[in-house]
């Protein structure tokens, strides 16, 4: 068998984009139609890896088939009703883009984790749509669902095992903007047509647009919002609560939260009030046993994460780039201990990672030239930026900011200690932990980069984020003093019309070619037009 695969690999290697780039006959972009981002054929990765990729594709197709079978009428109605549902059809192209150039161990880790996301997300979509009043679900059925803000980690909701939390913005905005760069500009335009200024964060504008367009699923009987970390976000919350029109509670956790003495007493009370709000409006009691079970799961995940970091610091790991950050983001922010399947995947992946470390496995065939810490939000996902940076310039994204969210352990025996830990974890959520959680959290970028043995820091620069614009020059000065290669990558988060994917790539291209005088690993992906791609 080995002889046969070796023979086929030898005969077909001229179609492998990595081989093509190394031999000057093409590269990753060769197999694409221009502008659209549609590939003429899928990537040839050698017999074993292509077959593995095919089987992973097949299992994702089956997961989607299962979703449709779980609620066929609601799913079809959902596709017909919601524009954002149409964007989920781009998922296969999204996955293909993310894992371009992945081979061997990193491909296996990436697909194991991606399948967990697909599995969970498809199940969630099916469940939500089948409970959506707009699509015909009864009031009684729909009221088992609790809409909560997407940046509120849902671990606390595991104490209500009979209820189903729905991070409200996740389906129409938070996740789908990663899959399809053209979906959110539609909602942004709606928000702006009502007078919302065009220079606010495009995430907030898009969410507002979804609310104004009446495109949130109609579920639940009370809503939990939060003080999201900037003015535009808070405005978003206001527009959403008005339009959703349900009784609501705003979980206003401390924004500057690193100091336990100052922040914890306040945030703890908010956490307790949030739980009490659910108890009151859904006529139920918080179940500590159910909560402790989920807390054990998130503790296990966080323990694995800390172990992973030790391997990632060395470079002998198959947990890399966009696969690592996307999985961590979803596992932490959207699942947050609620789905045991993620622990199963983690255990499987950890076994593989331990072996990789023992045999000193180097991902991407050892073609990495630089190790970078990335400070990047959604714009790095729809652009598959870490994958591109590795394939084009050999820049390995060792860790992204999305992987640094709350990793404290949660007590699993004593409710009082547990509520403190839960509060700490909840405070360290998306954005609150990063851009607006205080200067210490932004400044920590250097410590992360240093601890992970990075020589480079890539910092995404959301041109509409007023908070982060203020620290622009300070970051540049610090990078010079500390001796990091430092690249600001301008982007307009979810609006790719303002700063295109190629504009973003050019930030890196210029630094690598002009400042470092390096040659690309794959010249076909230095400059290309993918403006019509999902």
């Amino acid at each position, binding site marked *: 068998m080995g002889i046969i695969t070796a023979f086929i690999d030898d005969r077909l290697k001229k179609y492998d984009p990595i081989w093509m780039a190394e031999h000057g006959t093409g590269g990753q972009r060769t197999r694409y139609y221009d502008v*659209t981002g549609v590939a*003429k*054929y899928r990537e040839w990765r050698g017999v074993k890896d292509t077959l593995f990729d*095919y089987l992973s594709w097949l299992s994702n197709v089956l997961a989607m088939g299962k979703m449709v079978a779980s609620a066929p009428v609601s799913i079809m109605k959902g596709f017909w009703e919601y524009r954002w549902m149409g964007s989920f059809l781009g998922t296969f192209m999204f996955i293909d883009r993310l894992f371009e150039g992945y081979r061997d161990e990193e491909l296996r880790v990436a697909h194991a984790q991606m399948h967990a996301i697909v599995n969970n997300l498809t199940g969630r979509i099916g469940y939500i749509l089948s409970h959506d009043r707009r699509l015909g679900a009864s009031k009684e059925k729909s009221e088992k669902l609790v809409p909560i803000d997407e940046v509120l980690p849902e671990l606390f909701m595991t104490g209500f095992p009979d209820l189903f939390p729905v991070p409200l913005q996740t389906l129409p905005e938070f996740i789908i903007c990663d899959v399809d760069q053209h979906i959110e500009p539609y909602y942004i335009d*709606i928000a702006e047509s009502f007078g919302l200024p065009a220079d606010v964060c495009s995430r907030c504008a898009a969410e507002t647009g979804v609310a104004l367009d*009446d*495109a949130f699923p109609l579920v639940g009987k009370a809503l939990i919002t939060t003080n999201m970390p900037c003015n535009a976000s808070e405005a978003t919350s206001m527009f959403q609560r008005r339009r959703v029109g349900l009784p609501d509670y705003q979980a206003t956790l401390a924004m500057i939260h690193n100091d336990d003495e100052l922040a914890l007493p306040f945030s703890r009370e908010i956490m307790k009030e949030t739980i009490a709000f659910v108890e009151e409006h859904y006529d139920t009691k918080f179940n500590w046993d159910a909560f402790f079970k989920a807390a054990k799961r998130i503790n296990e995940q966080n323990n694995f994460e800390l172990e992973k970091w030790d391997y990632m610091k060395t470079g002998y790991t198959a947990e890399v780039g966009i696969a690592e950050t996307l999985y961590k983001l979803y596992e932490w922010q959207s699942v947050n201990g609620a789905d045991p399947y993620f622990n199963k995947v983690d255990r499987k992946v950890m076994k593989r990672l331990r072996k990789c470390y023992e045999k000193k496995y180097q991902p991407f065939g050892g073609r990495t030239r630089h190790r970078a810490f990335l400070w990047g939000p959604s714009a790095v996902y729809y652009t598959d930026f870490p994958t591109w940076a590795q394939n084009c310039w050999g820049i390995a994204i060792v860790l992204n900011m999305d992987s640094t969210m709350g990793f404290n352990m949660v007590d699993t025996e004593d409710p009082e200690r547990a509520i403190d830990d839960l509060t700490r974890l909840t405070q360290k959520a998306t954005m609150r932990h990063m851009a607006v959680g205080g200067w210490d959290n932004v400044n920590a970028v250097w410590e992360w980069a240093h601890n992970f043995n990075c020589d480079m820091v890539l910092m995404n620069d959301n041109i509409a984020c007023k908070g982060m614009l203020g620290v622009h020059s300070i970051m540049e000065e610090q990078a010079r003093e500390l001796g990091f290669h430092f690249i600001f990558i301008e982007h307009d988060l979810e609006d790719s019309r303002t700063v295109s994917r190629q504009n973003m790539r050019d930030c890196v291209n210029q630094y690598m070619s002009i400042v470092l005088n390096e040659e690309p690993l794959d010249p076909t992906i230095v400059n290309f037009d993918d403006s019509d791609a999902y």
Partner: protein
Amino acid sequence: MKIDLKALLNILLKIGLGLLIFFVVTFTIYMGNFENKLIYYVIRPFLNKHYDAQVRDRRIV
């Protein structure tokens, strides 16, 4: 109990043939990226046309 080897072989052959046909069809779709071409060039334009024609209840409150 007497096992009818011929019948068993026949069943296994049919299962094998079915799996082979399934593999050839799905692998061709996969390698030719046909499902994405169908989505990008046919399904999405059709859905977008429908979405553009929707009358939505757009308002602030």
